C-alpha cells in the first residue's frame, strides 16, 4: 500500500509538471495580457509605456525564463506577485481556498446524503410510483445547471421574503449560524446536481448487484431486507458510486465558478475567473495548479478507498 501511494505521488508530480506546461502555454495563447487590460481601463495605448510596464512585471523576458521562474517559485513556496494587485499571490489566494473547499465538501455531503439513499430506495422499489418519482427528481437535477438553480433560489428568496443570504463572507468564529446559512444554500444548489448523478449510479449499480447469486442466497437464507441490502448488496454496489463521487468532487472544485459568483462567495473559482479576465498570470497559474492538486489527490483517495470497500482489490508494488 505504501509503495503504491509513493508511486502514485510520483506520477502525480509528473502530471503536475505536465499540467504546469499546459497552463503556462494556454494562458499565453489567450489574446491580450495584463498590460493591454491596464491600458484598456485607461482607454488608450502607449507603446513606450507598455514596454516599461512589461519590463516592470518581468513579462519582457523569454517565455522559457518566465516558466522556469514560476517553477522555481512553486518549489520555494513563493508564488510570485499578482500583476493586478501588486501583492504576493499567496496572500490573495490563501483566504479563498477554505471557502471553496468548504463549499465543495458541503455540496458533496449533500449530494451523498441525498443521492445514495434515494438511489437505494429507487432500486429496491424498482418500477413503482416512488421509483418513477425519484427518477424524475434525479433527471431534473441533472438537467438544471447549478447556477440557474442558484439564481432561482436568490430571486425566490428576495421576492418572497425580501431577504437573501449575506453577500460578504461571514466567518464561523464570528457567527456560525449566519455562516451556515451562507453556505447551505449554494451547497444545496450544487449538491443537487451531483446527488442526481450519484442516485442514478447507485440505483443501476445496486440493481445489478441485487441480481447476483449471493444476494439470492442471502434472501433464501431468510436474511432481513435491511441486512441483505445494506450489508451485502450496497457495499458491493458502492465501488462505481465512490468513483463517481471522486470525479464529481474534482469536477466541483473547478465547476463552482458560477455558483460562487451567484451567491457572491469569495472562493477560488470566482476569483479565478476575474484573474483570467485580467490575465493575472501568477494568480491564474497557481489557482489552476491548486485545482489540479485537489483533483489528483481526490482521485488518489478514491483509489485507496477501493481497497477498503472491496478486500479483493490489491495494490501492486
Amino acid at each position, binding site marked *: 500500500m505504501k509503495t503504491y501511494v509513493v508511486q502514485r505521488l510520483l506520477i502525480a508530480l509528473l502530471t503536475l509538471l505536465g499540467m504546469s506546461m499546459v497552463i503556462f502555454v494556454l494562458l499565453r495563447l489567450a489574446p491580450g495580457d495584463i498590460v493591454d487590460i491596464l491600458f484598456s481601463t485607461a482607454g488608450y495605448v502607449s507603446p513606450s509605456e507598455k514596454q516599461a510596464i512589461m519590463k516592470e512585471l518581468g513579462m519582457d523576458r523569454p517565455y522559457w525564463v518566465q516558466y522556469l521562474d514560476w517553477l522555481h517559485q512553486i518549489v520555494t513556496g513563493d508564488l510570485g506577485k499578482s500583476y493586478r494587485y501588486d501583492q504576493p499571490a499567496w496572500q490573495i489566494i490563501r483566504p479563498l481556498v477554505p471557502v471553496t473547499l468548504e463549499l465543495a465538501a458541503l455540496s458533496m455531503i449533500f449530494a451523498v446524503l441525498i443521492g445514495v439513499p434515494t438511489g437505494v430506495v429507487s432500486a429496491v422499489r424498482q418500477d413503482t410510483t416512488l421509483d418513477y418519482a425519484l427518477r424524475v427528481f434525479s433527471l431534473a437535477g441533472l438537467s438544471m445547471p447549478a447556477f440557474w438553480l442558484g439564481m432561482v433560489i436568490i430571486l425566490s428568496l428576495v421576492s418572497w421574503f425580501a431577504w437573501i443570504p449575506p453577500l460578504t*463572507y461571514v466567518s464561523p468564529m464570528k457567527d456560525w449560524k449566519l455562516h451556515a446559512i451562507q453556505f447551505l444554500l449554494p451547497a444545496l444548489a450544487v449538491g443537487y446536481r451531483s446527488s442526481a448523478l450519484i442516485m442514478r449510479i447507485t440505483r443501476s449499480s445496486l440493481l445489478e448487484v441485487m441480481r447476483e447469486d449471493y444476494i439470492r442466497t442471502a434472501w433464501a437464507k431468510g436474511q432481513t431486507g435491511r441486512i441483505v441490502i445494506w450489508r451485502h448488496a450496497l457495499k458491493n454496489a458502492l465501488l462505481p458510486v465512490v468513483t463517481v463521487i471522486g470525479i464529481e468532487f474534482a469536477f466541483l472544485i473547478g465547476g463552482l465558478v458560477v455558483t460562487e459568483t451567484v451567491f457572491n462567495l469569495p472562493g477560488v473559482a470566482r476569483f479565478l475567473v476575474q484573474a483570467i479576465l485580467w490575465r493575472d498570470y501568477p494568480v491564474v497559474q497557481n489557482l489552476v495548479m491548486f485545482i489540479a492538486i485537489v483533483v489528483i489527490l481526490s482521485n488518489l483517495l478514491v483509489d485507496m478507498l477501493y481497497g477498503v470497500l472491496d478486500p479483493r482489490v490489491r495494490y501492486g508494488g
Partner: protein
Amino acid sequence: MSRLRISRSLIVLGVTLSALAFAGPAQSQTPKSGGTLNIMLREDLAQGFAIHESSTISTVFPSSPCFNNLVYFDPFKPVESTDTLIGDLAEKWSWQDNYRNLVFFLRKNVKWHDGKPFTSKDVKFTFDMLREGPDAPAKLRINPRKDWYANVEAVEAPDPYTVAFRLKRPQPSLLSLLATGYTPIYAAHIPPANYRTTCVGTGPYKVKEWRKGEYLDYVKNPDYFVKGRPYLDALHYVVIVERGTRTAALQAGQLDAAFPGETTKAAAEQLKKAVPQLVITPVGASVTDNIILNTKKPPFDNLKVRLAVSYAIDRRGLIQAVHQGAGVPGAAMAPRPYGVWGMAEKDLLTLPGYGKPAEMKDKARKLLAEAGITPQHPLRVEMVTRAIAVYVDMASFVINELKQVGIEATLKQIETAQWHAMATRGEYQIGANLTGLGVDDPDANLYENFACGSPRNYSAYCDEHVTKLIDQQSQELDPKKRLALVIAIQKKIEEDAARPLLDHRIDYFTVWPHVKNLIPHHNIFNFARMQEVWSDK
C-alpha cells in the same frame, strides 16, 4: 414642429415624468451622524486607489472618499458647470493675468491620513507628475489624462498654502478639469505606485480594509478638515460581480445604494415595483454610444460613405430598441438638461441621421450610390465591437440599420483586452463604441476624441480647421461666444461623420430612502466623495 423635435421633446418629457414617478421624498431633514452605508460595486477596484492611472468608474467611485481635489463640483447640484464649483482643498482661487494664471489659496488645517500636513508641495507634486513636466518628481506608469494639462506651463508653490498654475494661454476649462473625480491630490511623500494597493489621502474617509475581490471598508476620518463631516461612521463597498445578485441585494436591503451607471430602466422599473419606497433618479450616465469609422482606410476615408452610415442609423429607434427609452439623442456634448454644452433641438435637426428615418435612409442610399455602392455592388464591411453585451446589442442594431441601405456588415467581437489597442492602432474598418466622459467640458471631450493625433481619437479624424476651432473655444473667455463655438464644432464633426454620435445614455440611480444627500449628478464620475451623505436609518 418637426418629428425630431416632437420626438426629442417626448423623450425628455418621458425621462422627466419617470423622474417624477421615481423621485423619492424631499431631502430637507436635519442630518444625523453615525451609521454605515452599504454600497454596490460591480467589480473590484480596477487599479486600487490609483485614480490617476485609471479611466474607469470602477476606480473613481470607490476611491473618491479617500481623496480631495483643489475644487469639486457641488455635491448638491446634479448639473455640473464652472458655476457649480466649490472649494475643496482650496479655500478660494483667482484668475489672474487675463486667465493666464490660476492661483489657489489652500486650507491650512488639512492633514494626510498618516498625520503629515498637507501643503502646496503636494499640489505641485501631483500636477507636475500629471503633466510630466521636465522637473516631474515622479512618473505614473500610465497617464491617461496627460493631455488635460498640456496648456500648463508651470505649477509654482510660492508658499506652503499658495499654488499658481501658469498657463501658456487662457483656459477657463482648467477649473472644471480640476474638479472631476479624476483629479484628486496625491501626497508628495507617498510613491504614486503605493496608491495601487492602499490610500493615503486627505478625504473624509480612511481605508480600513480592502479584501481583494470582496469588499472595501472605510472609516470616518476624525481629523477631517470640514468640521462635523463626514456624517457616516463607515462605508462598506461590496463587490458583486453577478448583475442579478446585485439587483437582489439592493432589493433585499443588503445594499443601500446602487453603483452609478448600473441601473437600467428595466431594472429600475422592476425594483420600483418590488420596493415602491426606493428612490430612483434618472440622470445622464455621461456615456455615449457612437460609431468609430477608420478615416485612414477605404471605404470610410470617403466622406460620402461615412455620411451614409450616419444617415442610415435611426437614433430614436436605437434608444427605444436597445435602451428601452433610457437615452437621449445628442451630438458630442450632452444635451440639456444633462449638460450645458449640447446642441439645441433645432440645431440637431440639421445633422445627418436626426430626421425622419425613411428620408434619412434615402439620403444614405443616394450618397452610397454616388460613391459607387449599389444593391448590385453592395459594400461589405466588418464591424468590430467589444465583447460585452452593452456593446454587442448596440452593434447588432446598427448592423441591421446599415443593411437597409446596402451596407452588409458582419460583426466581429473583440476581447476587452484587445479593444483599445486595436482601436488605437486603427486595425478596423467600422466599430460600435461607447465613450465615457469624465466631465461635461468641451476641452476634455473635444481634444480627447476629435483633435488631430489624440490617442483616443479612434477614427483618426483630423481636420486642421476643427482643431483650430477647438483651440479657439478653449481660450474663449466669453461664455456665450464659447458656447457658439462649441456648437459649431459639434455640427462640423457630425457633418464630417467623424464619429457619429448615436445617443447619450440615462442611468436610473437607485438608493434606499434612508440614504440622504447622495445626489447623483449627470456625470457618474463626480459625486462619490460621500462627505455630505448621511443615513436616516
